[in-house]
C-alpha cells in the first residue's frame, strides 16, 4: 500500500488526465464512491437540494397560495428589499441582539470560568448548577423567563418593589424589551461558553503563571498577559459562533415576545418567518434569507481569515 501514498504526495494535477489513471487510482476512486455514496444520498436530498432551491426561491415571486404560478423575477425581490426600511431596521436590531448577547455572554462566562478555575469551595456544585440553562430547550427557557418577567406575578418585580423600586413591564415596555431579551440570551449561552473557556484555561500550562508570578505580576496582569493571550483562539471561535447562532436563532425571541412590543425585538429570522407564513410571500422571505446568508458569510470570513493567518504562523 505504498503506491497510493505516492499518489497522494504528488500534486493533484498528476492524477487529473484520464488516460493516466492507473489501476490503483481507479480502485481508489471506486472505493471513495462506495464509502461516501450511502451518506451522500440523504445529504443531497435533504440538505443540498433544499438549500439550493431555497436560495433560488429568493429570485422568484413564489407565494404560499395554492396553485400560484411561480415566475422568475431576477433581482426584483432584492431591489424591493433595498427600500424596505422595516427589514433594515430589523437587520440592525439583529446585529445589536447577536452582538450584545455574544459579547455579554463572553464577559460573564469569562468571570464564571475564572472563578471555577481558582480553588474555591463549592466548585463542583457550581459546575453542575452552571449547566442548568444548557439542559433546557429554548422554548422552556422562554416560558420560565416570561414568568419571571411577568409584570403582575413575576418574582423580579416583586423583589424590586420590596426594596422600593417600582416594577416595569419588562417585555412589554419599548425601552426594556430588547435588553430583557438579551439577558435571557446571555443566560442560555453562559454554560457552553464557560465550559469552553474553562477547557482553554486548563490547557494553559501553570508554569507560565508561575513564571509571571515570580516576575512580580499581580493577578490582574497575569490575567491580561498570560490567560487572555492563551485563550485568544477559543475566545475568537466561541464569540464568532455565538454571534452566528444568535443571529440565526428564532425560538427564544419568538416565544418571549413574538417580535413585540411594536417591533422592538423583531430580529431578522422572526421578520423573515412572518413574511413567509403571515404574509405568505415565500419568494420575498427567501430573498431576505439570502441577504442574511451573505451577512453571516461576511462575518464568518473575518473569523476564517484570522484562523488561517494563525495556522500559517503555527506551521512556520
Amino acid at each position: 500500500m505504498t503506491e497510493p501514498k505516492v499518489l497522494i504526495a504528488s500534486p493533484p494535477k498528476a492524477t487529473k488526465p484520464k488516460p493516466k489513471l492507473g489501476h490503483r487510482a481507479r480502485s481508489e476512486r471506486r472505493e471513495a464512491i462506495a464509502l461516501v455514496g450511502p451518506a451522500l444520498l440523504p445529504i443531497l436530498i435533504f440538505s443540498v437540494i433544499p438549500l439550493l432551491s431555497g436560495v433560488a426561491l429568493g429570485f422568484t415571486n413564489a407565494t404560499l397560495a395554492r396553485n400560484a404560478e411561480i415566475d422568475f423575477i431576477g433581482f426584483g425581490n432584492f431591489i424591493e428589499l433595498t427600500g424596505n426600511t422595516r427589514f433594515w431596521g430589523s437587520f440592525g436590531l439583529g446585529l445589536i441582539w447577536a452582538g450584545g448577547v455574544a459579547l455579554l455572554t463572553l464577559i460573564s462566562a469569562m468571570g464564571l470560568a475564572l472563578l471555577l478555575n481558582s480553588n474555591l469551595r463549592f466548585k463542583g456544585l457550581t459546575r453542575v448548577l452552571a449547566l442548568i440553562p444548557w439542559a433546557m430547550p429554548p422554548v422552556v427557557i422562554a416560558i420560565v423567563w416570561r414568568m419571571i418577567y411577568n409584570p403582575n406575578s413575576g418574582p423580579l418585580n416583586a423583589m424590586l418593589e420590596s426594596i422600593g423600586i417600582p416594577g416595569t413591564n419588562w417585555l412589554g415596555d419599548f425601552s426594556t424589551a430588547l435588553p430583557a431579551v438579551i439577558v435571557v440570551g446571555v443566560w442560555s449561552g453562559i454554560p457552553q461558553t464557560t465550559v469552553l473557556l474553562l477547557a482553554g484555561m486548563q490547557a494553559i500550562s501553570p508554569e507560565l503563571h508561575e513564571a509571571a508570578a515570580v516576575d512580580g505580576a499581580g493577578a490582574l496582569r497575569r490575567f491580561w498577559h498570560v490567560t487572555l493571550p492563551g485563550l485568544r483562539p477559543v475566545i475568537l471561535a466561541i464569540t464568532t459562533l455565538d454571534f452566528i447562532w444568535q443571529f440565526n436563532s428564532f425560538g427564544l425571541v419568538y416565544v418571549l415576545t413574538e417580535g413585540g412590543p411594536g417591533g422592538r425585538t423583531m430580529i431578522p429570522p422572526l421578520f423573515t418567518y412572518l413574511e413567509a407564513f403571515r404574509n405568505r410571500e415565500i419568494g420575498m422571505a427567501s430573498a431576505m434569507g439570502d441577504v442574511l446568508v451573505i451577512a453571516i458569510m461576511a462575518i464568518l470570513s473575518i473569523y476564517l481569515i484570522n484562523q488561517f493567518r494563525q495556522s500559517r504562523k503555527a506551521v512556520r
Partner: protein
Amino acid sequence: MSQSTTAKRVGGRVLMYLALAGYLVFLGFPLLWLVSAAFKSSAELNSLSANLIPQEWVFTNFTNALERQNLIPAAINSLVVSIATMVITMLLTMPMAYALARLQGRLRAAGTVWILGSQVFPSILIIIPLFLVMRTLHLNDSLFGLVLVYVTFTMPFTLWMMQGYVAAIPRELEEAGEMDGAGRWQVLRTIVFPLLVPGARRDRDVHVRVGVERVLPRARAHPEPGALHAPDRAAIVPRRGGADPARAARRRRRARDHPVAHHLRPPAAASHRRDPRRCREGLRRRPPPCTRHPTQENSTTPRERQSP
C-alpha cells in the same frame, strides 16, 4: 505589610465567593422558579403574589401533564427518533469520515464546503423547500421522515468530529493490516472502525441529547420552525468527558494488543503526537494535528507532514 496582604487576600476571597453566589442565583433561580411553578395552582400562578414556596402544594399538574397531554407517547416518540437517528448517523458517517480524512482532493473540498455551508444558512431558507421535498417523497408526518431529516442535519457536526478521529489513527496500522493480507474492506472493518468506536460513543451521547431536546418542544405542539435547523448549539460543544484518561488508556491498550499492531509500532515521539487523546481534550492553545478547524486541518494534513 504582611498583615495588609493577608487582609487583602481574605477580602479578595470574600469578593470571589460573593461573585460565585451571584452567578449561582442568576443561573439557578429560573430553574427554581420553574419547579415551584409546577407545584402551584393556576389560581396562585395568576395571582398578584409572587412566592417561591407555593401557598398550597398542588400535585395534579404532573398527573395532568402525563395523562391529558400525552407526554409519555411523545417521550417514547422522542426516544425512538433519537436512537434511530444515532444508529443511522453512525452507519453513514463512519465510512464517509474515513473518506474525507484519508482520500484527498476534490471530494474533501466539497465535503468541507458542505459542512460549513449547512451551518451558516438560516433555517427559514431551508424549511420551505425541505417541506416540499418531504411532501413529494410522502415522508412528511412520519417519524421515519423526521429521522432522515435529523440524520442529515446532525451529520455535519458528526462528520467533522469523526474525521478528526480518523486522522488520529496512524496510517501504519492500516498498512500493517494490508501487509498481513487483509483487503481494503477487511482493513476498514477490523482496524479502522473499531478504533473509531470510542469517538462514536461520545458522539452518540450528544445525538440522543440533542434529539430529545429538539423533539420534546414540538411534541407538545409548540410550533417551532427553528427546530429543524441543525446541529443544535448544544451539539457543537466538545464534551470534557472525552478526555477521560482511563478510557484513553484502554483504547491505547486495545490498539497495542491489536493483532496487526505488533508489526509496526510507531516510535514514541510519533505516537505522542498522534495520541488520539490529545485531539479530544477540547480546544488547546496550539491545536494538535487533528484539530477540527478546516483551515488548520488543511495546514497539517498528513500529506503535508509526509512530504519533505
